[in-house]
């Protein structure tokens, strides 16, 4: 009993500000809106010339037709890029990335994955990310950079032709863009599922503590 109260006291003093500061929460939810816009309008664009043997159901696409999808996609782009740049800038300047995402080690990730799979991973302290979380968040940051760059490569394959060449040409850049989208959707499924399993984390992302 006493240890719990000490933990609580420590949490209270260590995070008297908040588990998730205001800027993180604001940028997080703006990003959530931007992501949904980008993904759903992206599916609309994909359907015009599918890369694979399937199209996305009309009911989960945004824009009504190709032109509308493109309009949404290129409008959402500004929201995503401005919001993303602010997030990365503040993440570095405030030291949040270093504090929350580092250190990360192979053994730590393996250990925490095992703990998670056997239901032994604790979520008592929300101010510290476990190694699996760190890996996922670092991974999704990299995916975010790659999807923006591959997006620029297929938007401007003449003006940014060196970028397009890095992705292996226009056609390959489209596949890279798609795979990155699929990675983000995969991340979202896990991310949302975990937020629902650990409801305190959703609360922290809304009211801060």
């Amino acid at each position: 009993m006493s240890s719990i109260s000490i933990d609580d006291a420590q949490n209270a003093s260590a995070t008297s500000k908040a588990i998730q500061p205001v800027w993180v929460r604001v940028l997080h939810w703006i990003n959530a809106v931007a992501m949904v816009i980008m993904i759903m309008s992206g599916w609309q664009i994909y359907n015009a010339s599918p890369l694979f043997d399937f199209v996305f159901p009309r009911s989960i696409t945004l824009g009504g037709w190709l032109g509308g999808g493109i309009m949404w996609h290129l409008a959402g782009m500004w929201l995503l890029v401005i919001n993303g740049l602010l997030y990365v800038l503040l993440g570095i300047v405030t030291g949040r990335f270093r504090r929350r995402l580092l250190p990360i080690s192979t053994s730590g990730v393996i250990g925490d994955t095992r703990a998670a799979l056997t239901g032994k991973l604790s979520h008592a302290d929300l101010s510290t990310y476990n190694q699996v979380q760190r890996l996922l968040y670092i991974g999704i940051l990299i995916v975010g950079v790659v999807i923006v760059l591959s997006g620029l490569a297929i938007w401007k394959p003449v003006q940014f032709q060196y970028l397009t060449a890095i992705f292996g040409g226009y056609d390959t850049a489209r596949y890279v863009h798609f795979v990155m989208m699929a990675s983000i959707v995969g991340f979202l499924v896990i991310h949302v599922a975990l937020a629902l399993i650990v409801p305190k984390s959703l609360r922290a992302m809304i009211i801060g503590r």
Partner: protein
Amino acid sequence: MLKKMRSLIIPGVDKQLLVKDAVKLMPDLSRRRFIASGASFGALTLLTGCNVSDSVSAESLLTQISKFNDMVQAKIFNPNVMAPTYSEKDIRRPFPFNGFYSEDEAPEIDGKEWKLEVSGLVDNNRSWTLEELYKLPEVSQITRHICVEGWSAIGSWQGTPLRDFLKLIGADTQAKWVHFRCAEDYASSLDMPTALHAQTQMTFKFDNQILPRAYGYPMKIRVPTKLGFKNPKYVTSLEVTNDYKGGYWEDQGYNDFSGS
């Protein structure tokens, strides 16, 4: 109430014909509604707490941002950057036909009758016969055609640089637009910096053969720095102007600059 109104409108009128006429007047919903079906669905509505479906303000906001994107793209556009060129073996054969109609509906043009009308801010607005245009110096390019839909294909085009022709007719190159009209009621506006780009071409041949009907006989405008729909085919007139006159797809919401 509704029944009453209906009886007021309808007496003696063929209902089916009336509906038919009304449908003709309506814009093509699937194209004009940018926000349609999808947007009202789930996540977006939940997250924003508002229903953006059919919202006129959302549509006008999107149009505003699209115009802002036009401006940004015009700034990004570097007239000295050439589109990548490819080799013979990269050419897609057969090169895909594309249009807002099927291939057998493509215009059939008699090259002997055809004339290119020239108008607007030019010193000499006489029209040109195909025979005269064929005598202009010919250049060749193997470049990638990128469709707004996302597919692309590499093709080989021969013709005369548009900027040389604009000089020849004494066009005001300070004007903002070169507007093209086509035989199949297609139209497109090209911003002057793009019209003056070295690779922008009045195209008369594909793969060193007289341009086939499917690819825009007798003349198409090949613009490798733009998406495919900004490459008008079956061109019948060229106008140098400071007024934005839109185009077939531009008027329906495709981004006007659509630069690659």
